[in-house]
């Protein structure tokens, strides 16, 4: 029993730990937190018998791990926000709570942005954050301006979908 169980965890670890670790580090920006989240996520997968072979699961182990990890991070951000709300109840406006909110939303939007394909992401990021025009992006990426507009069109829709899945927008 135990050698099998150990082997299952070893397999999960070897297949997914590096991807999961990099994902959670980018999500939280904090290695200590990321260690806790990755360990907890891997243990839950192991206890729940989540493997890539399991035909009863519709999604792959990788998708399962990423979803559980993201939920752990989000739950913790939410409970941090609640704690601040309780502590700072008497203050008319709540700078700490606002900051937690801002950090939380920043994290979710950045995570959603990373789910876009590179073709979609590069035109959206260059236009919005780099303040480049369609013509400038088209010249730099050696694409027709019509293609740049079209990629932005699909890119923002993909972003909207990713944010809807994360409960940020309707």
């Amino acid at each position: 029993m135990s050698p099998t169980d150990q082997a299952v965890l070893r397999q999960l670890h070897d297949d997914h730990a590096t991807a999961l670790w990099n994902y959670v580090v980018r999500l939280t920006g904090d290695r200590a937190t990321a260690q806790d989240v990755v360990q907890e996520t891997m243990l839950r997968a192991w206890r729940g018998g989540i493997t890539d072979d399991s035909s009863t699961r519709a999604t792959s182990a990788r998708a399962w791990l990423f979803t559980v990890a993201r939920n752990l991070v989000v739950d913790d951000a939410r409970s941090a926000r609640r704690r601040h709300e309780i502590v700072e109840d008497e203050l008319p406006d709540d700078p700490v709570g606002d900051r937690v909110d801002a950090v939380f939303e920043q994290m979710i939007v950045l995570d959603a942005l990373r789910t876009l394909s590179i073709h979609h992401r590069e035109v959206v990021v260059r236009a919005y954050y780099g303040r480049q025009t369609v013509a400038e992006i088209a010249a730099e990426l050696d694409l027709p301006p019509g293609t740049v507009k079209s990629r932005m069109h699909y890119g923002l829709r993909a972003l909207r979908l990713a944010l809807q899945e994360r409960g940020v927008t309707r």
Partner: protein
Amino acid sequence: MSEDRYADWDAAYVVGALSPAERQDFERHLETCPACRASVAEIAAMPGLLGRVPDTQAMATLAPEVVEPPPAELTQRLFDTAGDELAERRRSRIRRRAVLAGAGVAAAAVIGAAVIPRVVTDGTPAAPPTVAMQQMRPSALTAQLQLTQKKWGTSVSMSCRYRDSAYAGGVRTYALDVVDAQGNRSQVSTWRAAPGDTSKLTAATALQPGQIKSLQVRDVATGTLLLTRNGAAS
């Protein structure tokens, strides 16, 4: 409508990437095209949400991603925790079997350690020293222990402080385990603590101080070992 050359201009428009001439052009078109107006409305909230992310962080998503291996410490902890859980599962199977076989007395000696009220000294000449538990991994918990030898075993007094931290995650349940020289683990106490709490508790084990290899605090929900202190049998 199907030949609408403006059909995919919506995104470039809302992020401000059209040239002034194109923008005027598109705005004139919007006045007469409900479909394009609807498209713009669909994604109108996106610039505000993108604005939550600082420019430098967003631009960094275009750089090739650096992939690093997970820290060795993480891997070590993961397999240690899993190993502890497996050992615990095996032991509880053995205990269940022992109880079913009628050897309830022996099992009770292992499990039956319980939280008891503060122990009155058994004529011990001097109070035993208080020692701090060591962190097995970074956490918001710190604890001090005091072990007192009794005729029936050992009384364990513990003062456990849960420091507030930005990433503590609310009220959690902890357990104190005693591990004997053979590596058998038995839980002697559980308690709940929230950030800022100091919990004082007294637990008891039938083991003599000389038979205790270590005392360990773990998070009950995750099984993660947080604090440890070696005993005389280590």
